[in-house]
C-alpha cells in the first residue's frame, strides 16, 4: 500500500493483514554541487526501489512518505525524530518497521534505531533508463523482498 487515499481506504478495512512499514530515509543538501547531483540521483533510485518493493508486497507492506534529513546534520537529533516516527507506527500496531537507505553513515546508529535498517549499495553513475540498470534494480528488489520476508518468519 502507498500513502494515498485509495490505499488507505483498503488499509483501514484490512489493518490486521498490513503489519509492515517501509520508510525510505533520504539525505538532502545543496552546498556541494557534485554531491547534490549524487543525492538527487539516489533520491530517484530510492523512489523506484520503494515503489517496486511495495508492488511486490503491497498486501502486507505500507510505503509511507520518505524521511528527509540534512546530510551533514546532527544524526543524534535525527535518530530521535526517526524513533518518534517509528513509535507512531508501532502504536498502530505495525510489527515491522523497515528503514531503507543508501547512506552508510546510518550503520553507526543502527543499534539506537527502533526499526530494521536496510542499507543498499548505491548505483553510481548508472542510467536508470537502460535495460541493464533496470535488470540490476530488479535483482536487488528481489533480494530485498527476500530479506523482508525473512523478518516475517
Amino acid at each position, binding site marked *: 500500500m502507498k500513502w494515498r487515499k485509495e490505499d488507505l481506504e*483498503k488499509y483501514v478495512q*484490512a489493518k490486521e*493483514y*498490513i503489519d509492515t512499514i517501509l520508510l525510505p530515509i533520504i539525505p538532502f543538501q545543496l552546498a556541494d554541487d557534485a554531491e547534490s547531483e549524487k543525492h538527487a540521483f539516489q533520491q530517484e533510485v530510492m523512489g523506484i526501489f520503494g515503489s*517496486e518493493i511495495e*508492488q*511486490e*508486497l*503491497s*498486501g*502486507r507492506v505500507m510505503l509511507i512518505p520518505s524521511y528527509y534529513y540534512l546530510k551533514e546534520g546532527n544524526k543524534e537529533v535525527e535518530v530521535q525524530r526517526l524513533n518518534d516516527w517509528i513509535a507512531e507506527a508501532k502504536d498502530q500496531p505495525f510489527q515491522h518497521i523497515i528503514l531503507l537507505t543508501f547512506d552508510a553513515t546510518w550503520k553507526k546508529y543502527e543499534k539506537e534505531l527502533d526499526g530494521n535498517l536496510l542499507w543498499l549499495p548505491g548505483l553510481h553513475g548508472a542510467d536508470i533508463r537502460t535495460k541493464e540498470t533496470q535488470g540490476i534494480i*530488479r535483482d536487488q528488489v528481489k533480494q530485498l*523482498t527476500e530479506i523482508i*520476508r525473512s523478518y*516475517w518468519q
Partner: protein
Amino acid sequence: MSEEKKQQVSRRQFLNYTLMGVGGFMAAGLLISPVRMAIDPVLKSGEGGGLANVGIAVDEITNEPTRIDWSVDQVDGWYESQVSRSAWVFKDENDEIVAFSPVCKHLGCVVSWEGSEKYPNEFFCPCHDGRYYKNGVNVPGTPPLTPLDEYEMEIKDGMLFLGDPKPHREA
C-alpha cells in the same frame, strides 16, 4: 449622513455578494470536476489500448510457469508513466498458452510459482500464505477468494502479446 450610511451598507452588501459569488464559483468547480473527469479523456485512466510484445517467443514457452516482466506507458489521472507489469506464462495440459496476472486476489502482493517449498506445483503468495493451483484457481481455506486474473493475449509472428488482466475464465 443618512446618504453616506446607505452607501456604506450597499458597499458591504456589494462585498457580500461578491464573496458569495466567489464561493459559488468554487462550489460550481467542485460540482463540475467529477463531470469533467468523466468526459475529459486526458483525465481518464488509460486503458493501455493495444497489446504489448512482452519479448517471448511462443516456442520458448514450456509447461513450467515462467515470470515475464515488461512495461507499458500509462496515462493515469495527472501522471503519464511507465508502469511495470508481470505475468506467469506457461502452456497448460491442452497445450494452450496461459498468462496469469501475479497479483494476489487477497490484498495484491505478487505471487510466485512454487514460491514455498511446502506447496509444490502451486502459486504461492508470500504475504499471508495465499495459494492457487496451477490452473489459477485459489486453494480453499487460504486468504484469496477468487482465482488469479488472466491477461488478454494474442500471438503475432510467433511472439506473445499481452494486454490487460481480465477475470479468470472460471470466475
